[in-house]
């Protein structure tokens, strides 16, 4: 095994990312649910000027609902398939 190989393998053994890094699905889900609610409300309260500007489509409503759906998708995915943290290896020392 080369020097580099030994060095990186030793670092991999000590690495904490796999055990301690939080799951990004929670953040994407949370942010998109919040954005989805905000933008959907903006869509429900859309003025005639807003509708006219957006070619007669209530774009805030549709975008808001789509973002809400994406956010919920990530939260449900997280719930159904949580990541199992790897079993901590026995300390090398």
């Amino acid at each position, binding site marked *: *095994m*080369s020097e*580099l*190989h030994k060095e*990186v*393998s030793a*670092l*991999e053994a*000590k*690495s*904490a*990312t*796999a*055990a*301690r*890094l*939080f799951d*990004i699905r929670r*953040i*994407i889900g949370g*942010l*998109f649910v*919040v*954005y989805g609610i*905000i*933008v959907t409300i*903006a*869509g429900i309260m*859309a003025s005639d*000027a*807003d*509708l006219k*500007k*957006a*070619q*007669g*489509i209530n*774009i*805030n409503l*549709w*975008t*808001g609902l*789509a*973002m809400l759906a*994406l956010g919920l998708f990530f939260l449900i995915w997280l719930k159904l398939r949580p*990541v199992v943290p790897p079993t901590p290896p026995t300390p090398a020392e």
Partner: protein
Amino acid sequence: MHTLAAGLRLPTNGLDYAIMAIYFVVVLGIGFAARASVKTSLDFFLSGRSLPAWVTGLAFVAANLGATEILGMAATGAQYGVAVVHWYWIGAIPAMVFLGLVMMPFYYKSKVRSVPEFLLQRFDKSAHLLSSILFAFAAILIAGVNLYALSIVVEALLGWPQWVAIVVAGLFVLLYITIGGLSSAIYNEVLQFFVILAALIPLTILGLKKVGGWDGLSDSLEKSHGHNFLSAWDGTAIGQANPLGANWLTIILGLGFVLSFGYWTTNFAEVQRALSAKNLSAAQRTPLIAAFPKIFIVFLVMIPGLVAAVVAPKIGLAGSGLQYNDAIPLLMQDLLPNGVLGIAVTGLLAAFMAGMAANVSSFNTVFTTDIWARYVKKDKPDAYYLRFGRLITAVGVLASIGTAFIASSFSNIMAYLQTLFSFFNVPMFVVFIIGMFWKRASMKSGVWGLVAGTSAAMLNYFWIYKQGVISIPTDQGANFVSAIVGFVAGAVVMVVVTLFTAPKPEAELAGLVYGTESADLEEEPAEGDDAWYRKPALLGWGAIVLAALCYIPYSI
């Protein structure tokens, strides 16, 4: 360089600013939350090689989906029409698939932490040092240019002074990368990917509605710009004239083969995302998972570009007050009501910051592991390199803030420097490909291939093209030709140097060159990775076939 026309000020209100503020809070939150996972330098620079494939895959595509790319490709659409698809379907997908299927096993199994480190293992210190230093400079330069581009867009759209935008965005990037390392950068890229989709999809739909759908769009463009504007290949026969100034041969070889393979397979800002994946299968799937969104993103930039060419027929012409780069901001102003508008502005800002962060997070890795730990302060404990990595991240961001300010007064020099650095990517690819497939390629051939290829590409561009020795219609076309010249020159010089110099001892090449498997590099496949939808070959060939199918409607 971006110069946005005045008069693009967006009618943002409190709602839009609230959406932006939430995003900035989340960005910093990710940085702080990722901090607990950074224990070693490997955690900081490569996320401990432990991320799942879908995360690294989306980060891979998002690292490339910077705002300069989004605004620039919409501009290309407005200027050259449907030909912009070449940058995606032939100029990205084959290279991404090649990286995943062919090159990634060498990269990942050798445990290198950066692209230059692979050159050190395969060739020698001179190739390593040259590529490390050039990469470090280029990364800071590009990060600075990104920051400068951001400040121009923010000034035009929101009315903030340029220096405020440069300092604020720079400090945000500094904070979240210094604290959370690559995990923080990658997580933010994944988030940015979804926000930018939430910005571009409504814009594309409303744009199409405005011009009467795809039929209305193509009818108008057929009348105003001619049929070639709506076709990918018409007018690209050798000797024929087309707006791109390139023929099918230079498109396929120059853009599709040399430029694109150079960028996607050896640019560390991209490859780093794959190296942070948790195992070989995930690393291989990183660029392959990225390929699928990449195939379709072109519609979200091309259509707004084409719509802008219809709505503002004089866009890009002198006197219209609008540049091609204004295509997306123009439609945002015209079509998006408050709310979605806030999402769109947030998406652009996020894309700028992610583009800069990708460069900063690859710069700190190369500077620390390849330059500092290898040639300046060797054999220190790991905690020292982790501290140094954080310090150099801060230095790198401050240097790119400086670069952004220089760019704001000397933007021509910056454009020139970017062209210079782009020529370095070309021979990188030839050195890698020969190094990975030809055992005999000698230790010294690496550095000479790099030098010769870069010089030949520059000579072709700055002397033969710029001085008019051979006439090539556009800069774009000349770029493609220079890339081909650089590739051929690099390959020839490598072969010649190899014939006269010593090969690398075979034992040191194990696992680095095709046909030299080394037993202790093999790893057991992880559970579930044998599922059919996780087979790299299927994903890769699927992406190629899909990209080829996408060409059909634009070729007949």
